[in-house]
């Protein structure tokens, strides 16, 4: 029945586009699309908490970084294969997120948001002194791990397609959650948590589940991303910039929509690319992001999709 909805096929088309575009061997395009896929993954999953339940997760990078660490550790020390390591990393991070969420999500949005700011600092401080994970120097992956995938060049292509797959799963996950009873409950929480609870929405459980769910695919993406670089260290794994950008992207595109994060990711990456090459603005990446976010919050809280839907309300039936 869901196959009849046009949006299902729109997502499929997007995935196909990502898969087909660099087929000619254009490595530069592939790298650019890979980064876009990462952004879309992070933003779509962030949306589950932010756009539906209305809870800002400032530290979503923690899923990405921990996923990377778990994956590399599983492969390096336990000698697992890529797919197994990546899935296990996702599961591990999800489980941790669920436990943490059960505790911290009994509270309201503000407290949760503050806790997510702190959690990145705390985890980074911890990992920096945690010797089994390389402490502050990090872990280097031996390149023979790439041989299992057919050598470095082939491995990069495999990783690309896997990441596109993860991106697609993120979009579908976001879509299915939105259309499910779980999603109705989350959105009720986001609109008015007190009213939702009185109506019977089991808020603490739902919020923890959403938080945990929103951790899985970013953790998998993190595993793939850092495996690709064959190196992970705390400063990169827990760089708040990426989670900040995920927030800006989600808000820019339109929180609570599925197409929004994808649109936002594309636009943001274009903007960022332009900023980095422009002489005046190279250092002002975050300043521009901040100004953009402020403008959205003050004047267009529904983001671009919000503006589009206001102009073309009919599109709501097709897009999400």
């Amino acid at each position, binding site marked *: 029945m869901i196959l009849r909805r046009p949006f299902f096929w729109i997502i499929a088309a997007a995935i196909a586009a990502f898969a087909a575009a660099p087929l000619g061997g254009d490595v530069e395009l592939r790298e650019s699309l890979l980064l876009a896929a990462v952004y879309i993954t992070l933003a779509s999953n962030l949306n589950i908490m932010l756009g539906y339940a209305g809870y800002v997760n400032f530290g979503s990078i923690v899923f990405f970084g921990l996923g990377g660490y778990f994956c590399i550790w599983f492969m390096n020390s336990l000698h697992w294969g890529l797919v197994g390591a990546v899935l296990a990393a996702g599961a591990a991070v999800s489980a941790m997120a669920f436990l943490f969420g059960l505790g911290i999500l009994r509270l309201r949005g503000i407290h949760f948001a503050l806790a997510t700011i702190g959690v990145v600092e705390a985890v980074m401080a911890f990992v920096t002194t945690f010797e089994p994970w390389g402490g502050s120097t990090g872990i280097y992956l031996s390149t023979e791990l790439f041989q299992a995938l057919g050598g470095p060049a082939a491995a990069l292509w495999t990783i690309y397609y896997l990441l596109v797959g993860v991106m697609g799963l993120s979009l579908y996950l976001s879509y299915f959650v939105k259309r499910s*009873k779980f999603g109705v*409950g989350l959105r*009720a929480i986001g*609109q008015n948590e007190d*009213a939702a609870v009185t109506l019977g929405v089991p808020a603490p459980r739902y919020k923890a589940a959403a938080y945990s769910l929103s951790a899985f695919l970013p953790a998998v993406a993190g595993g793939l991303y850092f495996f690709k670089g064959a190196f992970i260290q705390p400063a990169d794994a827990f760089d708040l910039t990426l989670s900040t950008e995920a927030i800006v992207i989600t808000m820019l595109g339109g929180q609570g929509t599925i197409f929004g994060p994808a649109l936002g990711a594309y636009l943001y990456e274009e903007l960022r690319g332009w900023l980095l090459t422009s002489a005046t603005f190279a250092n002002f990446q975050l300043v521009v992001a901040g100004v953009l976010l402020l403008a959205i919050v003050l004047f267009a809280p529904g983001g671009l999709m919000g503006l589009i839907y206001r102009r073309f309300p009919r599109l709501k039936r097709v897009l999400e």
Partner: protein
Amino acid sequence: MSAILEVERLGKRFDGLQAVGDLSFTVNEGEILGLIGPNGAGKSTVFNLVNGVIAPDTGRVLFRGADITAEAPYRVARRGLARTHQIVQPLPAMTVLENCEVGACFGRENLPLARARAAAREAALLVGLEAQLDAPALQLTIAGKKRLELARALAAQPALLLLDEVLAGLNPAEVARMIETVRAIRARGVAILMIEHLMQAIMSLSDRIVVLNSGRKLSEGAPGAVAQDPAVIEAYLGDPGLARNGR
């Protein structure tokens, strides 16, 4: 008639103010019990204590025989107790239908989404909102929002409905309509505990009345008897002489 809600010696203190003290009353199945009292008597607090928004200091709340004292509101809702709010609490960006869906999905019936949609439609129909199913809740008038509160609570197929000043802010035509709706709800077998300030309405709707003053039960009984009770008259009008001298 068996009791569907039993409140036993409920007490709650806020920073030195005894909002509710040693309160006991019962709501029977199929009846409409009116809860009245001067402003600040603690009526909304009673609702909050019953459905779990705040925990009482003393006393118990029993719903259909089960002890639900201080249980989380969503668990209470799942048992079949729904409530509306004095200050309406719509889910603003969601449509009327979606608002009711939430009630249907997470209330007593715990329906899957498809069946919830049907139940939601039915509830909206009962209160007369069928023309605005796709309108975002924030666009409704105050009367519409009040009806939405009601529809949402009904969509959950509750056994007991707590109505908090559902007539406040409505014009006479809307009041009359709402009274009819409340009667229709009772006709379906739902017990109702309602707080109201519109004396004529609540006196005519209720089977029994409980009068609250400063958190304590002042009087209880049939509407006619309660209206004649000198203590009640004094509480509302302040001058016992007015009671002694007739109306």
